[in-house]
């Protein structure tokens, strides 16, 4: 019996394909176009306690096989999300993962509390955010801070807690282990790689914020490496992210150890890509005679 669903501990997905945070809006934008409820899950644009204006323009620039963004986490805020955006997703029975971030530990906790009494299936903790109280050092770049924020959110949120890891660190494995010990249910990786492009005419960065986050196929080999390394070090499920554009990319991540995957930048270049990959993956698994996606996970040999 073929079962296409995936269980990340207490989070059940109808299939392993998740739309990545910040690359699928709040699920309403592609509505005419795409049956959002077909997704394994939708990770929302990052939510903060208060609405955020975001960065000035320009915010994006293409790079070789990639793009840099510095949207500045523009979002409606967690309250407006629950009021205005979530109902549509509820109506369509989408599995919603609320991607959240704060500038202080208190903000993270506050948002998580608010979400505890909502219908979202899970929180994805974006810890690649500068901690204003710690002088701008990112939560996600310091194993200790990453553990603290996980632990505190864990206390106030009882459903699935996914923690999204930053690749801009010396050892993602060390952070993964700390976050696991602090009570995370799963890990998603990777977030974007910090990068810059310079306009050689104006001598200014091509995005207003100076640096931004590199995503797309360019970073896929970095992400696959990090998933493979992390898989060897933790027991909780891993969600693989980075440059997925075709079926073979999903297979790479799953073989490396990802129980589910997220599609980001590819939603921009091909808005129906998630649906196509959901179908293709299902066909592939059946053709290979596998009874569930799980059978592929972590089958990497010789590493």
């Amino acid at each position: 019996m073929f079962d296409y669903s995936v269980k990340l501990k207490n989070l059940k997905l109808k299939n392993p394909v998740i739309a990545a945070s910040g690359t699928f809006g709040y699920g309403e934008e592609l509505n005419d176009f795409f049956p959002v409820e077909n997704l394994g899950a939708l990770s929302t644009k990052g939510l903060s306690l208060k609405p955020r204006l975001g960065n000035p323009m320009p915010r994006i620039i293409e790079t070789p096989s990639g793009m840099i963004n510095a949207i500045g986490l523009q979002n409606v805020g967690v309250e407006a999300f629950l009021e205005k955006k979530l109902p549509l997703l509820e109506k369509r029975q989408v599995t919603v993962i609320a991607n959240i971030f704060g500038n202080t530990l208190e903000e993270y906790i506050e948002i998580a509390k608010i979400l505890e009494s909502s219908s979202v299936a899970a929180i994805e903790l974006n810890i690649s955010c500068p901690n204003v109280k710690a002088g701008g050092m990112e939560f996600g770049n310091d194993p200790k801070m990453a553990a603290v924020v996980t632990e505190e959110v864990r206390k106030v949120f009882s459903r699935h807690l996914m923690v999204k890891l930053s690749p801009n660190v010396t050892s993602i494995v060390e952070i993964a282990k700390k976050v696991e010990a602090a009570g995370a249910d799963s890990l998603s990786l990777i977030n974007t790689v910090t990068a810059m492009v310079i306009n050689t005419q104006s001598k200014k960065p091509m995005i207003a914020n100076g640096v931004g986050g590199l995503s797309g196929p360019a970073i896929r080999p970095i992400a696959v490496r990090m998933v493979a390394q992390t898989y060897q070090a933790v027991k909780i499920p891993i969600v693989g992210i980075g440059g997925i554009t075709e079926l073979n990319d999903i297979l790479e991540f799953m073989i490396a150890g990802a129980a589910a995957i997220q599609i980001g930048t590819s939603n921009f270049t091909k808005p129906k890509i998630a649906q196509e990959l959901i179908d293709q993956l299902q066909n592939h698994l059946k053709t290979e005679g596998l009874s569930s996606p799980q059978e592929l996970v972590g089958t990497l040999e010789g590493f």
Partner: protein
Amino acid sequence: MKASLIQDRLCDVVYQIPLSANYYRLGLHSQIDQFTPGQFAMLAVPQIAGVLLRRPFSLAKQDGPITEILYKVVGKGTQALSQVDVGKKIWMLGPLGHGFNEIEKINEGIAVAGGYGIAPFYELAQIRKNAQKPFTIYYGARTQSDLLYLEQFAELGVTLKISTEDGSMGFHGKITDLLNQDFAERAPQKIWSCGPMGLLSAIKKWSAAKQTDVELSIEEAMGCGTGICLGCVVKDQNGQYIRACKEGPVFNGASIDV
């Protein structure tokens, strides 16, 4: 005007005509029903040398199943696009965004265009003609060879007011100077404008001074064209960022900060 559903379709290239100044007319067998001038499409240009994202282009004209795009080669994506031969295929996502309003209703509407900002006015001129309304385009360019679609506009009965920076054709100077000259006494009933940001700012200012209704089609770098990346924003009158691709690209001049 009935809205066409957005579609993403692999279209045959039915023509690819080089014009002056590195401009091309591209014909795509899109099977779009119709579009509102000002709407655009995201084209998947060939992914040469690491090109990843699609590129936005105004829809210039619909002729049965064929959509025309007027584009200029400015970088590697448009360069790659210009190498695509007739008979090859290109993905086109569209029509996207909101176009110009009141095209058939306004009696004395004028357009102000700069550069490839002329593109949407090809279809717009057709609609005005079908609706039996007069139409004048103020069309500014650097030099004569940058002026496109002149014959087509003549055929559609458009009154063309041309200005060039170097005086090689029409009025010698800025398009706003020409506007000042022609509308010294009165104001046009409505302005539809499309072109570089500098032109749009100038037209917005000019219209405000004249207390005339103006719609601006703005151009921002676009990641997705569908509203999901937040890469193409512009500030509205409340200082909030709204999306050029979704809430625009055509905005009421008063509602945005350009």
